[in-house]
């Protein structure tokens, strides 16, 4: 059926800022969808508030509205643009929920806007737990016994009936937010209360636990002719009970016989047909390992996280095809973009094993609750492809960048076996390493299987890896042994550990003996049909399929899995670098391992190697392709960290030299650099010996900032105010590695400024400067930032420019450089120099209109900035005001403290812009998920050091008509010094109205809390903040943020004033 000609203009709803459960995969699918619609000749209007994405580039859609994703703003866009249709199924849960809300307001009907993809009925039927169950009954498809509840009591009653354990699943939430498994009544009470609060419809499903079943997913596509196919099925190694997003997953399924696989395939197709979905759909099923009994877990009537994975795993671009189906095309008439000869109506055949492993944020949130369950906690994931599961898994492990990449965490060696066994009972993020350790200790598969219910097939494969380790132990440097284990994905590093050699030795031995991998194509059809996709993975096999062209090539290294501190921004920069290379006529080759992103879409680059980003794996590609050089500056710390090893092995690093990188990152060299250039920096020292840290801090003078060197996103960074606090910090961290000393700096209070520049070594061009709202001390990734700067004098800006230009010149920066300054009393202190693309590149590129990564790439390849008209200057500022706001995923991460500090915690970002500062900030806050209450109550509870500052804030809330609550100390202070009414509330544990019950009962709209975590992590301050987050109440931990929010409220609301309030004003 040809494309729908009744429509011309389509509004695509994106998924907004990145949060756990809804991440970069929607940038990938959204970008594909927009391009796919444009390909068909439609005008595409995009609404997405996430500035860090490729999707919101102005080349992807015809018009981009980076406005808050709310009904209000979407309605404005609809009225203004008058689209003929809206496509909501590619914007994750956010897109779907908005479609439902829009429909309810009647605006779609009013303007005759058609809903493409999936009908609202179908969305409701799949998403509303009750309707879904009804549908399953009607179709005669089994779901675990369950009941929908709207109250805690109903939940408890039902659980008493069916028996524990039970699962709580809130309706209409993402990534299992608010859900969980409950073994006891107490747990159920707690979780259900929380779940009801988080569900927009106050609804939860209480369900019998089927933990331990196999969890299998089917990615299905259907068109309007009712033709439907399964793109891919996937099996979770972690059985039901651990969220698929947090499970290690293989594709295709490995333990299902043809009959079982086909049975579940039939079910999946039946469901997509029953729901009449036009587009992609994800079906999650549980299968009894001992029978044909299965249950439907859920159906996502849209493109999902798993569909991005399935697309990369098979080569079949689900989102692209789904978009075409949404506008009326049918599968049989769409071409398979990989083969370019066959049709999109077919089911990919895989001839490799794909493994997906989630990446968790617990290297950052050390005290967070690491246990895995039905609520997703991973921030990102990696995918690996191999010709056997061992290879695929081991490649995956080293793609994670956990530890040194080996299938072995040394710290586990010291843990008792009993403790390890407990750790696999309640799986946590390190489970796979714990399993390896247990197998090394000879714990039997039976025992492990009994505890974990992981299928023996998978356990056998783990055992095989350990067996191989043991087998080769006795024959160090044996060539045949090496050749053998390489086929099973052993890295040089792993072999080196077993043989007690250096990684270099193993690599050299292999080169000598020509033990190197070949590359196989991902072609959707197991080589049956000739394919065109330039999409490859390595394997230790016979035939190499990656033909090397005679064009000049450049290899760009990606940034690996998304984690806090290294997010989608780096993928954005990587993609632009690749596009720039293509523009220049180079063959652009990319290496990356993140299945969620645009950079690993095989149609972006000239060639894609889906491979781990380790020295070994990168060298193999370089040895084959012989590029003129490698670009490392767009792939975050992942790529930068590879530069040294690559250069040692004779590879040319393009752009800024390794030496310059080192001069910026090595503490001593950095200090010398600033000294030479006569630039200010906070007093500080690098300490390699734990015992002198306290003394050093004393000499510098508290407060000081401590952190390990060579980290990204401020890992393990803290501001400490006295000895005791410092001691506590030292106890928390590992021993200091002399190569990576501990840094102790004077904590300088001031305005923090982010500068990103492009340099060719001569000219240093700054498209824009960003100023932070919060004073220094809040990580740049977590603070609200504004462009253009609002409080900086021309003199200060000039100083920033000068410093940037000086540093860029001295380091001979070629490409991008990011510098962070603190401005105090007109002085400009340099706190950090990153000679690479930074997190702010996409934001700045979009608000200034300068495609920074593109220009930088051209500079890297030798083009002069001056020739292109750029000078050493700051580009003239725009008139509008643009805010970048952090977005957190605290609801998903239990036991993580929400206090903002120098350690980054946010997972995503949102943008707000307008002609007017307050309006821009208002939109930004809204876009970041903060609905500002204009009236109500505020709870104040602050540390002593902040008491003086809280006064004006309290006063402003008061005059805006808010009721003030405060804990006793704070209340007393306000009463004494401010003299306006404030209600003192009791501490935690006092039985009447106390600080916690205020929150849990929803009596306050804001919580302002600056109590530090104190001695124990479970301090009062911590509990107050967590309760606020869990009850969806705005919780602010920084007074500058409060100040900014207050100014927004002030500018948009009316005060109640007496008639003579303005008397003295003229």
């Amino acid at each position, binding site marked *: 059926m040809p494309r729908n000609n009744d429509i011309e203009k389509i509004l695509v709803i994106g998924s907004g800022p990145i949060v756990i459960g809804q991440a970069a995969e929607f940038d990938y699918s959204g970008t594909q969808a927009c391009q796919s619609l444009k390909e068909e000749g439609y005008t595409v209007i995009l609404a997405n508030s996430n500035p860090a994405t490729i999707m919101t580039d102005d080349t992807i859609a015809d018009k981009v509205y980076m406005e808050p994703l709310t009904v209000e703003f979407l309605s404005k866009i609809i009225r203004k643009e008058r689209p003929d249709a809206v496509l909501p199924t590619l914007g994750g849960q956010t897109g779907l929920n908005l479609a439902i809300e829009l429909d309810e307001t009647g605006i779609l009907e009013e303007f005759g806007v058609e809903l493409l993809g999936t009908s609202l009925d179908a969305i409701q039927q799949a998403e509303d737990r009750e309707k879904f169950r009804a549908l399953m009954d009607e179709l005669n498809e089994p779901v675990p016994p369950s009941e929908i509840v709207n109250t805690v009591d109903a939940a408890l009653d039902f659980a008493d009936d069916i028996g524990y354990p039970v699962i709580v699943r809130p309706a209409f939430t993402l990534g299992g937010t608010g859900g969980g498994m409950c073994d006891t009544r107490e747990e159920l009470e707690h979780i259900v209360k929380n779940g009801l609060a988080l569900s927009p419809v106050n609804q939860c499903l209480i369900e019998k636990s089927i933990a331990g079943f196999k969890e299998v997913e089917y990615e299905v596509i259907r068109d309007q002719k009712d033709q439907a196919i399964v793109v891919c099925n996937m099996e979770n190694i972690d059985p039901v009970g651990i969220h698929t997003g947090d499970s290690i997953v293989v594709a*295709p399924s490995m333990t299902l016989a*043809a009959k079982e696989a086909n049975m579940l395939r039939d079910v999946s197709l039946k469901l997509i047909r029953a729901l009449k979905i036009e587009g992609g759909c994800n079906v999650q099923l549980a299968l009894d390992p*001992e029978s044909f009994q299965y249950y439907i877990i859920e159906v996502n009537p849209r493109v999902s996280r798993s569909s991005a994975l399935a697309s990369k795993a098979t080569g079949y671009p689900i989102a692209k095809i789904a978009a075409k189906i949404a506008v009326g095309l049918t599968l049989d008439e769409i071409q398979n973009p990989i083969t370019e000869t066959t049709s999109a109506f*077919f089911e990919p055949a895989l*001839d490799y094993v794909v493994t997906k492993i989630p990446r968790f944020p617990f290297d950052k949130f050390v005290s967070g609750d690491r246990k895995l369950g039905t609520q997703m906690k991973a921030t990102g994931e990696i995918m690996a492809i191999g010709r056997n599961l061992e290879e695929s898994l081991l490649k995956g492990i080293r793609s994670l960048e956990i530890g040194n990449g080996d299938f072995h965490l040394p710290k586990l060696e010291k843990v008792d076996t009993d403790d390890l066994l407990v750790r696999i009972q309640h799986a946590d993020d390190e489970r796979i390493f714990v399993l390896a350790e247990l197998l090394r200790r000879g714990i039997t598969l039976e025992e492990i299987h009994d505890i974990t219910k992981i299928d023996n097939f998978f356990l056998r494969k783990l055992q095989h890896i350990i067996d191989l380790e043991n087998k080769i132990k006795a024959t160090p440097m044996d060539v045949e042994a090496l050749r053998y284990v390489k086929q099973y994905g052993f890295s040089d590093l792993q072999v080196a550990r077993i043989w007690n050699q250096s990684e270099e030795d193993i690599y050299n031995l292999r080169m000598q003996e020509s033990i190197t991998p070949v590359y196989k194509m991902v072609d959707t059809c197991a080589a049956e049909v000739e394919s065109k996709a330039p999409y490859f993975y390595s394997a230790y096999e016979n035939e190499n399929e990656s033909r090397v062209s005679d064009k000049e090539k450049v290899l760009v290294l990606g940034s690996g899995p998304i984690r806090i501190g290294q997010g989608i921004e780096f993928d954005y920069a990587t993609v632009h670098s690749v596009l720039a290379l293509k523009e220049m006529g180079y063959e652009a080759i990319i290496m990356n391992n993140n299945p969620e992103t645009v950079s690993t879409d095989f149609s972006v680059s000239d060639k894609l190697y889906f491979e781990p980003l380790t020295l070994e794996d990168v060298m193999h590609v370089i040895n084959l392709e012989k590029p003129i050089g490698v670009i490392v500056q767009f792939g975050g710390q992942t790529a930068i960290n590879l530069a040294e090893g690559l250069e040692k092995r004779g590879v040319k690093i393009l752009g800024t030299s390794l030496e310059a990188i080192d001069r910026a990152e090595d503490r001593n060299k950095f200090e010398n650099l600033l000294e030479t250039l006569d630039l200010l920096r906070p007093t500080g020292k690098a300490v390699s010996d734990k015992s002198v840290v306290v003394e050093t801090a004393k000499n510098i003078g508290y407060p000081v900032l401590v952190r390990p060197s060579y980290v990204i996103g401020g890992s393990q960074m803290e501001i400490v105010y006295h000895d005791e606090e410092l001691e506590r910090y030292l106890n928390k961290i590992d021993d200091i590695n002399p190569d990576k000393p501990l840094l102790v700096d004077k904590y300088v209070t001031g305005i923090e400024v982010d500068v990103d520049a492009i340099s060719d070594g001569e000219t240093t061009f700054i498209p824009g400067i960003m100023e932070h709202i919060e004073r220094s001390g809040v990580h740049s990734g977590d603070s609200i930032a504004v462009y253009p700067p609002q409080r900086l004098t021309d003199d200060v800006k000039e100083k920033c420019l000068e410093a940037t230009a000086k540093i860029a010149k001295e380091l001979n920066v070629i490409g991008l450089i990011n510098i962070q300054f603190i401005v105090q009393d007109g002085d400009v202190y340099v706190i950090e120099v990153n000679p690479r693309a930074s997190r702010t590149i996409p934001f700045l590129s979009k608000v200034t209109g300068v495609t920074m990564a593109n220009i930088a790439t051209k500079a890297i390849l030798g083009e002069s900035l001056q020739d292109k008209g750029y000078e050493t200057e700051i580009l003239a500022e725009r008139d509008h005001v643009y805010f970048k706001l952090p977005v957190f995923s605290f609801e998903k991460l239990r036991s993580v403290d929400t206090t903002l500090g120098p350690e980054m915690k946010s997972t995503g970002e949102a943008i707000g812009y307008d002609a007017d500062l307050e309006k821009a900030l208002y939109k930004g806050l809204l876009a970041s998920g903060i609905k500002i209450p204009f009236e109500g109550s505020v709870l104040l509870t602050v540390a002593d050091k902040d008491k003086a500052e809280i006064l004006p804030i309290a006063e402003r809330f008061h005059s805006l008509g808010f009721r003030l609550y405060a804990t006793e100390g704070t209340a007393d202070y306000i009463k004494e010094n401010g003299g306006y009414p404030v209600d003192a509330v009791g501490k935690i544990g006092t039985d009447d109205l106390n600080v916690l019950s205020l929150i849990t009962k929803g009596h306050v709209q804001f919580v302002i809390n600056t109590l530090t975590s104190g001695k124990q992590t479970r301090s009062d301050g911590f509990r107050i903040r967590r309760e606020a987050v869990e009850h969806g109440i705005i919780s602010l931990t920084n007074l500058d943020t409060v100040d900014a929010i207050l100014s927004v409220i002030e500018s948009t609301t009316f005060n109640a004033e007496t008639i003579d309030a303005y008397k003295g004003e003229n």
Partner: protein
Amino acid sequence: MSKRQLILADGKVFTGDAFGAEGKTAGNLIFFTGVTGYQEVLSDPNYFGNIAVMTYPTIGNYGINRDDFESSIPFLNGMIVKEVAQYPSNFRNEETLDEFLKQHDIPGILGIDTREVTRYIRENGSQEAIIVDGHVSVEDALAQLKENELEQIPVHTTSVSKPYIVPGEGERVVVIDLGMKHSILQELMKRQLHVTVVPYDYSVESILRFKPNGVLLSNGPGNPEDVKGTIETVKELMKEVPVFGIGLGHQVFALANGARTEKMKVGHYGMNYPVKEVKTDKSWITTQSRQYKVDQSSLVQTDLEVTYVSVNDGTVEGLAHTSYPAFSVQFNPEGAPGSNETNYLFDQFTELMQQNKNNGDEK
């Protein structure tokens, strides 16, 4: 593990390690692209005389079970895999693939770059090949391969030698067995049909003596032109009763109506072949296992119309007679392994038999 070689008729050699039975074996080298389904491939009579390259790299994951055989003995001559699962895991698992192959005297090779072999077949076409031990010279192997070519007609082996009956309460159907898969029989039984299975060379008269309401031409291996007698039988039968042909049965039906068949450069062995029903313009995923196809251009002078086409290249996937109640499909509507979403064809056949019976009653 000892070395073993796969030597193709054109002299190309691939080396790997031995698994399965000892000894050598020859056969037509094909590749199967399904991820699962090795047990069905082993036992589907369509694979008679073939050496199958399994493109999915890990084979044997769920072992061998009691239920998923497509015939009582395996017909495959040899199997080429990347890796064999030593420890299958599945609740129905009874023995490993390796044990099964040993038991049934089927040699295999593992550790071969199966993707390379597949690409080789794709480029150079299916051909005869031989599996021999590592020490055998290529010349010797090729000589042995030649000897082997004195081939018999596969259907002679895969068909039953004597008729048998599977009683049912519904219509009477006679299956002309060219190498019928069990799943086809099961589809018929599911519909309560009274099934009589007869050998490929059973005469028209003997068949009609069963008073069938319809005749099913089963799937089977090899070149349809080899079963001349059956073609003649079908010519007569389709005038009398509804006929439904599957796979080889489809090709025989085409030949019986004056069309031609031809060998494909590369056969279709897998479970992801898209076909489209011409009448409804709707596409389905099908399982196929065949080396031959009906030549579209030869249909012009016949009374056949095309009912199904391949979505990928438009070639013939299904036929119907323009005046008789007779039709056929190239693919396997019973799936096994893989999609059986086209098994509505068995319903259509059953209805056709019912209608025809009623019409007959009226006469």
